[in-house]
């Protein structure tokens, strides 16, 4: 059973809020505390993620923010700030269906 995300409404959260949540989620997959993760950090090169971690981070982001990340966008999301921007972009899009 999946709980409804607090982001499933119509209000798009601010970038700081999204960035903070993204850092928190990433910190659960890497050996770095959320407050030590920088916006410019690259998941592969700076945070020691591999592609399996990245997919799992993405799936966690999808559940947390109630979004669906297309594969072509996922391939471009390499830095923490870039991920936050990608999430914001998806949250800003009108829900399909």
């Amino acid at each position: 059973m999946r709980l409804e995300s607090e982001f499933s409404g119509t209000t798009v959260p601010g970038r700081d809020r999204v960035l903070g949540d993204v850092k928190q989620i990433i910190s659960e997959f890497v050996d770095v505390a959320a407050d030590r993760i920088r916006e410019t950090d690259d998941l592969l090169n700076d945070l020691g993620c591999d592609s399996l971690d990245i997919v799992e981070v993405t799936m966690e982001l999808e559940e947390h923010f109630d979004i669906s990340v297309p594969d072509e966008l996922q391939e471009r999301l390499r830095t923490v700030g870039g991920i936050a921007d990608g999430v914001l972009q998806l949250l800003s899009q009108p829900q399909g269906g």
Partner: protein
Amino acid sequence: MTNGNHRVVDCRRVDLDGTGYVIVRESVFDYLCRKAGVRPSVPPGTEAAPGAGLDLDSARLSQKLVRRRVATGLSQAELARRAAIRPETLNRIERGRTTPDFATIRKLVLAMGAAERSRVRVDVSEPPAKEHDDATGK
């Protein structure tokens, strides 16, 4: 695979213009780099290419995938079936011979996650074994 306490690395030594080089499999090279805490240089022009970094971690990815699959109790064939990918493809991924794209990794993660959840459900719903009661209630 071992010689005394040391693992043997399959490699070839070659001499080019008086300089000796050692050729090892890419997965071995990546493994050795990780153990040494170094990162190989990236050829110019490929630094920020989408997905370029994925090629660097095929060895680590394959090891993690194998560990995760074994932990879920799935055979290679069963995981391939559940993830709807060809068994040969999963075999190549697990041997570090190919680097899967995000879509394939996602299928594998979803299939292993579902297997883990169903295992937890079975563990929780199964009553304690009868023999255990007999052994402790002596």
